[in-house]
């Protein structure tokens, strides 16, 4: 007994002191080697949101106990993913507050609150999705389009740089991505007629190093896909974090919808690089390749979803360098991430806006007659909620909306800086019905015909669905998979549940009482594995009972 007490005391010392070790670029590259930490928005540069921590398994998942809860002061539903570094959790709450928490106890070390400019006007919520870290510095984008460097130990701001003008509709809602000595961000604002871009900044000074416009300017390749001045306010925002391949030194970034959103005839052409994924040299921002999912998009199928990078074992023993992309337009794509070549694409939901993809992955578009319902609807077959790939099951998992459609109506729109530039509207398929919004209360007051949610497992080798877990309401939750073949996810109904990643069977669930609109993560402190997920305004952290 005495010996146990001594061991406990030693562990207390070891566990209660954060090492404050600097997060080097090498650590970020090798993040898979330290699964006790969650170092980037998507966990690793490959963005597979998969943990090799193995304490929690199907044998004991029903022994998960709530360890602590953090309640945000903001009433905005969490869309953030925390990062965890050596026992310290860094989390953002809306609109732009950062907190450092003891990841074991949930107590707060410091809180930094940034007050955004009143001119900021993010289209779809005053949200923030997280921070990036390099060394002892955190980086946060703000809804008034600033990038702020913050000391990770004290919470003091170090520098601040203006990325774009908030009064023109630009905002930063994504978690930045660190590559070497640069912090990379991209802008939201596709509903305001912005000209989107991805840009990189010196981590030490905030000086802009490069900028890649997601709409090519005059004389640049791709500019011919726009007419007249359409390119100047053509949208193509990029509001989620991209992925990075250290071997090729390429970043992969999903690009959003063209503007005006729902009037494609007002912007004839393919509207590059809207609704594409682009591969850029991380040092220079130069375009290596692009692949466009939805040319001349009439539906707001912006393609900002997370590109998941997978080295997939081929039959000849080699590894295929793939990108897996579950797109808002309802198709799942497999792309050669070295060249951008389309390999395979399959519908993961029932849809009617296209009749499949051709040999190069271009959709065979089937516009619906006026007044008819288009599937998927404006929120898409999936959206910002992160997917996961498990190297154990070799399956790709995503949250999907099924049976959900919109009736699109195009209207002529006149561009005016800082004003919404939408070009029409999406209506519900049922007269008097509703489009599922993020603000729904605890009572599900809409009809089944409006759609439902599901977790879908897809085999990248074939594009075929392996299993499906259906839910009543649509889902906005990201997905975490484990090396023990668990899949953690949640939904708008406020449930947080664990499925068997191999067959989709339900293993465990809890009611958290708030909408889950972010991705769960896993980390460990003092050798104990934790699962964290935000629901509503609270962050809930679980571990096996001791």
């Amino acid at each position, binding site marked *: 007994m005495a010996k146990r007490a001594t061991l406990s005391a030693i562990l207390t010392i070891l566990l*209660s*002191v954060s090492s404050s070790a600097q997060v080097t670029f090498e650590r970020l590259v090798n993040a898979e080697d330290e699964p006790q930490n969650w170092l980037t928005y998507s966990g690793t540069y490959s963005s597979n949101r998969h943990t090799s921590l193995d304490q929690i398994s199907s044998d004991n998942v029903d022994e998960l106990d709530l360890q602590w809860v953090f309640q945000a002061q903001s009433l905005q539903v969490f869309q953030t993913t925390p990062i965890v570094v050596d026992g310290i959790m860094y989390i953002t709450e809306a609109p732009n507050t950062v907190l450092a928490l*003891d990841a074991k106890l949930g107590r*707060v*070390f410091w809180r930094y609150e940034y007050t955004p400019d009143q001119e900021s006007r993010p289209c779809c919520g005053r949200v923030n999705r997280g921070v990036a870290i390099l060394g002892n510095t955190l980086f946060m984008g703000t809804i008034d389009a600033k990038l702020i460097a913050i*000391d990770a*130990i*004290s919470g*003091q701001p170090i520098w601040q740089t203006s990325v774009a003008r908030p009064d023109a509709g630009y905002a930063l809602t994504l978690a930045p991505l660190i590559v070497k000595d640069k912090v990379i961000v991209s802008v939201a604002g596709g509903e305001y007629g912005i000209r989107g871009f991805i840009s990189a900044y010196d981590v030490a000074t905030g000086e802009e190093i490069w900028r890649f416009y997601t709409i090519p300017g005059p004389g640049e390749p791709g500019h011919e896909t726009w007419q007249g001045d359409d390119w100047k306010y053509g949208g193509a925002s990029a509001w989620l974090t991209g992925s990075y391949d250290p071997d090729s030194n390429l970043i992969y970034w999903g690009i959003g919808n063209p503007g005006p959103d729902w009037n494609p005839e007002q912007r004839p052409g393919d509207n590059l690089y809207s609704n594409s994924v682009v591969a850029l040299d991380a040092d220079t921002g130069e375009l290596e390749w692009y692949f466009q999912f939805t040319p001349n998009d009439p539906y707001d199928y912006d393609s900002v979803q997370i590109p998941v990078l997978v080295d997939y074992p081929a039959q000849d023993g080699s590894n295929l360098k793939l990108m897996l992309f579950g797109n808002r337009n309802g198709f799942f794509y497999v792309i050669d991430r070295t060249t951008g070549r389309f390999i395979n694409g399959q519908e993961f939901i029932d849809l009617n806006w296209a009749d499949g993809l051709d040999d190069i992955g271009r959709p065979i578009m089937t516009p619906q007659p006026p007044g008819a319902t288009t599937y998927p609807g404006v929120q898409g077959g999936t959206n910002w909620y992160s997917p996961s790939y498990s190297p154990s099951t070799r399956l790709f998992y995503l949250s999907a909306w099924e049976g959900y459609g919109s009736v699109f109506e195009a209207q002529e729109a006149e561009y005016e800086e800082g004003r919404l530039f939408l070009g029409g509207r999406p209506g519900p398929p049922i007269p008097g019905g509703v489009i599922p919004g993020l603000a729904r209360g605890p009572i599900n007051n809409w009809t089944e015909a409006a759609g439902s949610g599901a977790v879908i497992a897809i085999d990248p080798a074939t594009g075929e669905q392996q299993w499906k877990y259906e839910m009543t309401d649509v889902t906005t939750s990201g997905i975490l998979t484990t090396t023990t073949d668990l899949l953690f996810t949640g939904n708008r109904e406020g449930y947080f549940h664990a499925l068997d990643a191999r067959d989709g069977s339900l293993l465990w669930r809890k009611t958290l009482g708030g909408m889950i609109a972010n991705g769960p993560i896993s980390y460990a402190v003092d050798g104990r594995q934790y699962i964290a997920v935000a629901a509503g305004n609270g962050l809930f952290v679980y571990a096996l009972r001791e």
Partner: protein
Amino acid sequence: MRRIFPWFRKAALSVAALTTIIAPAAAQDHVGQYSQADINFGMRVYGETCVACHGPNGDGVDGVNFRTGRFRSASSDLGLMGIIRAGIPDTAMPPGDYTTPELTGLVAYLRNIGDFDASDVTIGNAERGQTVYEGKGTCAQCHRIGVQGSRVAPNLTSIGAIRTAGSLAESLTNPTASMLPVNRNVRAVNQEGTLFTGRRLNEDTYTVQLIDQAERLVSLVKADLREFTVLTTSAMPSYEETLSEQERADVLAYLLSLKGTN
């Protein structure tokens, strides 16, 4: 050497107040809009009704610091009056039954609180003060400005925007008297005899969070400790004897020049 007499300075800025105040104003641009009488009256009202929560420096509520000149819930004077009168639902900010002169005075005082200091202090040369700060004063051994210095003591990057000249002057000669309670040092010993010392960042019934002498964030469970003491004296030395009056005035000028990043 420049001497500041804030009361006289404000009096010299007197203008007709009420009509200007009621008109929406650009945020943080209010110099000369308020009469000294309104400011003085507002200070009195503030001392009677606001100071218990917001504190004498205007920074007593977590996340709210009137000295920054930024108000989360209102930007215009009219908006501020509305907040003061109606309160903020679901927060500790209650509604208040104020007269128009009281509201006018409160807004005038809040708009000037950053420059307002009842004490009469001597402010020297900021450049010379920086030299003293970085040299003879050895301040950076514990304090941090920007990315220079230690994190052990409170960060001074924006100290000039959040503390008054009077309180800063006092901290140089009598650090304990002007130390904020949250910054108190903690001494803790666990069951094995390991000593933890550092500046308190947060504390609750069962745990305490601090930054230790090695600039590490430390979280302790009180039940695991055999000794836990919150020190009420500041670890900062008094500079009354080690720096001359001129040097202290120069350091004060330097500290007041620190207004934060960008």
